[in-house]
């Protein structure tokens, strides 16, 4: 099966040619930084960034900050994700609920999560709770919207099959509707994870004294551009790993059905 081949090949084989450009850029920056008469105080060369990053990794501060950011992102995702999922399922299944609530949802949804920061700071104060709430707010919407549309677009024939088999309501949702909608709900989850990370770092950079974003802010204020860039690169690595994790998980879940059954 061609389709299956391409799907399976992608994650398991790293395309080494794709690494040529990044390596060239890093080498160029390193050599350029040493050779060209630039003011290097605020533009550290890659080796300096790596050294600072390595030091932060060894003294635990980098991992600690990562743990804080990921905790906030995970809790926020769990909270917002479950609310979004429950809401999306309800709205997708019951057109009446959907008609009742669509206007309200569309009125609240466009509020940028960053605009919630001052409100959350005032009401909840700085700390984990406030960050989790903002992540939850931002993650709930994509999950809700995608879940709703995923459920609305479940093959009508399958719903009829469940009816003629006389499946009860909860069995119908659990055995037919949710599995059929799962691939699209998973797309929403990937989107929400990316949003959660962005929101976490934004909250930390602007307001909250925890996590990777705060680490960047401190490094900047301490005039440690090497450390600041190290954090930046690290955030990229964290985001990339999360996406890789989710992509693999998605393949496991969604493409299980295309498996040859071996």
């Amino acid at each position, binding site marked *: 099966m061609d389709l299956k081949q391409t799907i399976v090949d992608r994650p398991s084989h790293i395309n080494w040619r794709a690494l040529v450009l990044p390596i060239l850029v890093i080498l160029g920056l390193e050599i350029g930084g040493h050779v060209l008469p630039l003011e290097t105080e605020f533009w550290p060369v890659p080796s300096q960034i790596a050294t600072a990053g390595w030091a932060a990794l060894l003294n635990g501060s980098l991992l600690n900050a990562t743990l804080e950011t990921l905790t906030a992102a995970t809790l926020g995702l769990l909270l917002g994700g479950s609310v979004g999922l429950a809401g999306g399922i309800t709205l997708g299944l019951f057109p009446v609920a959907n008609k009742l609530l669509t206007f309200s949802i569309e009125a609240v949804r466009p509020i940028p999560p960053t605009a919630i920061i001052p409100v959350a700071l005032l009401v909840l104060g700085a700390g984990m709770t406030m960050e989790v709430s903002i992540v939850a707010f931002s993650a709930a919407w994509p999950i809700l919207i995608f879940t709703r549309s995923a459920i609305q677009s479940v093959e009508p024939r399958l719903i*009829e099959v469940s009816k003629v088999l006389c499946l009860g309501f909860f069995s119908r949702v659990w*055995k037919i509707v949710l*599995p059929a909608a799962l691939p699209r709900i998973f797309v929403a989850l990937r989107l929400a994870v990316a949003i959660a990370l962005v929101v976490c770092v934004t909250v930390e950079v602007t307001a909250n004294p925890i996590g990777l974003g705060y680490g960047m802010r401190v490094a900047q204020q301490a005039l440690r551009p090497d450390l600041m860039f190290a954090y930046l690169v690290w955030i990229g690595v964290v985001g990339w790993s999360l996406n890789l994790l989710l992509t693999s998980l998605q393949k496991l879940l969604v493409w299980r059905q295309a498996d040859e059954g071996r």
Partner: protein
Amino acid sequence: MPSVDQASEAMTAKGARGHGEVIISFENLSLSFGSKLILDNINLDVARGEFLCVIGPSGCGKTTMLRLLAGLLTPSAGQILYQGLPVSGPRPDVAVLFQDYVKALLPWRTVFGNVSLALEAAQVPRKLRRDKIMAHLELVGLADHAEKYPTQLSGGMQQRLQIARCLAQDPEVLLMDEPFGALDAMTRQALQDEMQELASVSGCTIFFVTHDLEEAVYLGDRVIGLLPHPGRVGREFEVNISRPRDQLTTPEKPEFLQLRHELYSFIKLVEHG
């Protein structure tokens, strides 16, 4: 179970066929969507164990009749009696086989799991399911493919799987909506013969919608020809051809050719005035 009175009353009322008790009767049934009349005053009795084929040009409401019978639609006027009681919704002992098997199967469940769904719906305990599922897969020749997913099967096998799922409901009545229309000729003939076999083994009453006249004559005990716009019963054709029927010899029989001729003329007349 219907009382004897109800059943015999229904039989005398509409002059049911000589053999068997009436299991389904359409009584002055009409259906409109908005102001558009789809089915107009249908009166039809189906005997228990009968293989009834319904034919007619597109737009005559064949599938709509089936959906009403399945309880997926509600009539605008009149009613359908099933074992003497009005049909008010889907029933576990009335199975429906859809034409579009690709859409009607659960792609995330194996062949085994798809049949299992019918037993789960009937709340058969898990321990008893495996043997029943395998027996039904055996019946349609899919026992060796139990662990495959529907997308890995050919069209004919997918439709067999849907048949197995319907039979797992242990139905009294099987409603089939152009079940073999999307299959190639060879597969269609093979499935027609299997269906013939399954019908006689299971004793199910079968309501079979098709647009293939020869298929209707080959499979049916009786063929109902519908007229379109709005849909109504045009003619009934008794099929007095001995069983078991055979793909090679049955279509050569004079009775077959005669009926084929009559059905063809009926459709021709309907379509061209």
